[in-house]
């Protein structure tokens, strides 16, 4: 078995086991906590043997498996507006369909942990689930990074709430809080996070051994779902080995890397493949993306720390990409454009997620008009297949790379 297959096989096995455990939750009696990806506190939940369920990941899987359209309609049938987030409607649709996900049945929540980092809609989402399931809801309030970094008051506030959440978890699961265990779990998180940063940095080489948007979104799945486990660390070890060997052979995701781009915004899950094709045909490789940072800005030096587990969880939670203020986000885009020697910026603006989208036109304004970075902004949605117009997108993407290629030709 080649390295490449080893990595994929392990990911498949680990995620398979995870979904199996979700299917068995009813029988095993394990308590189930729903939580969000950005700023999640899974390390804490693992200390209480709670099973984490990520509704966002279920929604994106439904998108890829072409189930989202029907599920969204189900939610709209009970009164959800066509203008609200497609992820939420997808999840409500799943609930109305006995939680039959593409990977088997999902358990009901015993506890809803609303770690709302970078998205106010998370609160509305779990308020709705609390309403429909009657499950206990804990809103973990994570302050927005409105200044350069978290203040002491911010950290103290989040840590205090984490302690309160630990009490709730102990009560729900019947497992007492073991702080030594939290240290072990956070050290496993740290090991995987370090390897993931090395993976991301591999895209600095020419050609990049992987697409830091279209492939990274799959590579980041174990970090979001299995963080704090041994399997997760092993997966990133194998992935890094694979990328290093690709790097040595000069292999990348496109036959010839013609354009290196930075991508801002989530992908259109229901049309993931065809969207990727629109770029591939121009020899485009994403070398950095912001979407791969929604689960944490590890590459900016924010890691879990077994020496200060609670405090590091609080810092981590505040440093998810959409919880950064727009100034910080703009600086990060600049950094990526420079660090990864990108030719252009692609902004995929999605209707569902205002948290991502509002302000993107300002990024475009600054970077394209003031700093001369070729920038393309296209619009569709991350969950709702109805907002994807292939002909329109193709037209814009072709025109953009046409003019980039032309400029290169003329400019020599």
């Amino acid at each position: 078995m080649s390295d490449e297959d080893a990595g994929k096989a392990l990911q498949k096995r680990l995620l398979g086991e995870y979904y199996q455990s979700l299917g068995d939750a009813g029988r095993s009696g394990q308590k189930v906590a729903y939580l969000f990806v950005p700023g999640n506190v899974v390390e804490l939940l693992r200390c209480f043997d709670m099973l984490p369920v990520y509704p966002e990941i279920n929604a994106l899987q439904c998108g890829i498996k072409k189930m989202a359209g029907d599920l969204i309609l189900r939610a709209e049938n009970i009164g959800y507006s066509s203008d609200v987030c497609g992820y939420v409607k997808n999840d409500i649709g799943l609930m109305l369909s006995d939680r039959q996900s593409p990977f088997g049945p999902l358990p009901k929540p015993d506890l809803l942990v609303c770690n709302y980092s970078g998205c106010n809609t998370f609160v509305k989402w779990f308020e709705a689930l609390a309403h429909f399931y009657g499950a206990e809801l804990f809103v973990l309030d994570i302050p927005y990074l409105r200044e350069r970094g978290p203040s002491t008051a911010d950290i103290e506030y989040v840590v205090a709430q984490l302690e309160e959440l630990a009490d709730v978890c102990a009560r729900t699961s019947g497992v007492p809080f073991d702080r030594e265990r939290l240290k072990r779990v956070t050290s496993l998180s740290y090991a995987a996070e370090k390897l993931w940063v090395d993976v991301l940095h591999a895209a600095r080489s020419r050609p990049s051994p992987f697409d830091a948007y279209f492939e990274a979104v799959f590579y980041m799945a174990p970090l979001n779902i299995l963080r704090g486990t041994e399997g997760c660390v092993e997966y990133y070890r194998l992935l890094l080995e694979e990328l290093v060997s690709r790097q040595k052979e000069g292999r990348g995701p496109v036959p010839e890397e013609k354009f290196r781009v930075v991508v801002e915004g989530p992908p259109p899950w229901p049309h993931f493949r065809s969207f990727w094709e629109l770029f591939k045909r121009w020899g485009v490789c994403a070398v950095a993306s912001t979407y791969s940072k929604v689960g944490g800005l590890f590459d900016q030096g924010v890691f879990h720390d077994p020496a200060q587990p609670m405090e590091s969880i609080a810092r981590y939670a505040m440093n998810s990409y959409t919880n950064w203020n727009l100034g910080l986000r703009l600086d990060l885009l600049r950094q990526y454009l420079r660090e990864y020697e990108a030719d252009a910026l692609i902004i995929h603006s999605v209707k569902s997620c205002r948290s991502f989208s509002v302000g993107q036109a300002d990024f475009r304004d600054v970077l394209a008009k003031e700093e001369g970075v070729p920038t393309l902004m296209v619009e569709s949605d991350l969950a709702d297949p109805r907002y994807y117009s292939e002909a329109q997108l193709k037209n814009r993407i072709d025109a953009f790379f046409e003019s980039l290629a032309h400029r290169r030709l003329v400019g020599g």
Partner: protein
Amino acid sequence: MRAWKEEHPSRRAVGAFPVYVPTELIQAAGALPIWLYGGGGSVEISHADSRIQSFVCSISRSTLELGLRGHLDVLDGLVFPSICDVARNLSGVWARNFPRMFVEFLHLPQNRRSPSAVPYTIAEYRRLLAGLERLCGKPVAPEDLRAAIHAHNENREAAWALLDARRRTPWATDAWETYAFLRAGAVLERETHTSLLRQALAAARERGRRPKDKVPVILLGAFCEQPPLDLIRAVEEAGCYILEDDLLLGSRWFRTSIPDGADPLRALAEAYVASSPPSSVSHYRGTPKQDLLPQRCRQLGASGVVFLTAKFCEPALYDQVLYKERLESAQIPYVHIEFEEKMSAVDTVRTQIETFVESVLFE
């Protein structure tokens, strides 16, 4: 506004985006707080369109439009509270486009059950206050804060007196009139506004209007973006008495007076955490809002609920589904209207409300 600036050349004016901004702090710093409620129907959106996508609510677009056109140059600062993703990101857009302005994003606790919520709110208010002190060039003493709280308490009492009178005798004043009186406070000094409200109340008492055969309702959903005045009138003219509403929620924030005692900052923070009114943009502290609504209808004797939600306002649109479910099981009729600041189809709305009124009356 400009006139006020000319009369008080040394004083600052600081804007507040809805819903929960402690304008007491702005006043205590010596500045005039100005509530921003968007551009209404009067401003043509031509600059903001290129900055804010078409799937975003009118108030964010029209407020930015006013700014980009220079209509908000009289403001020295602007405070955005943590109500939704749009307002939050708008604070960043604002900071970039208006670098000379003092722009602050205020993170208000969504976890109001946590014992740490009060200390956190105090820290956050202190941070805002420090910024205001820098802007206004003078430190804020506890007595400044007490005086501002006192003026706000009086203002809120006057507002509530008007609202309570309408609730008891809805025929005496129209909701759109009350609304106009309250809305005027957005650009006035608290004290001036308070006397205006008192005059309005006295005038309403003298009117001697008689009750009509109308349907008493609660109006919900417009806590941030404001519906066109014509729309509020249309709801009334179509046959509703609006007993209670959540219009301009932020300016009449608290039902009870905030103690202006030894630790005024703590009193303000405690008031937010413990007794700020529920809305779609503040996570409930105890019982969910939707569970309280049927009970509230019965208490007030409201026969139904009219939801006016701003188009694209996600928080209100999510809550709508939950409210609707609870009202249906309690068999309380409701009607749901989506509005935009620029709305021409008021006639269609009138027809909808009339149908709703007929269904309630002839049930």
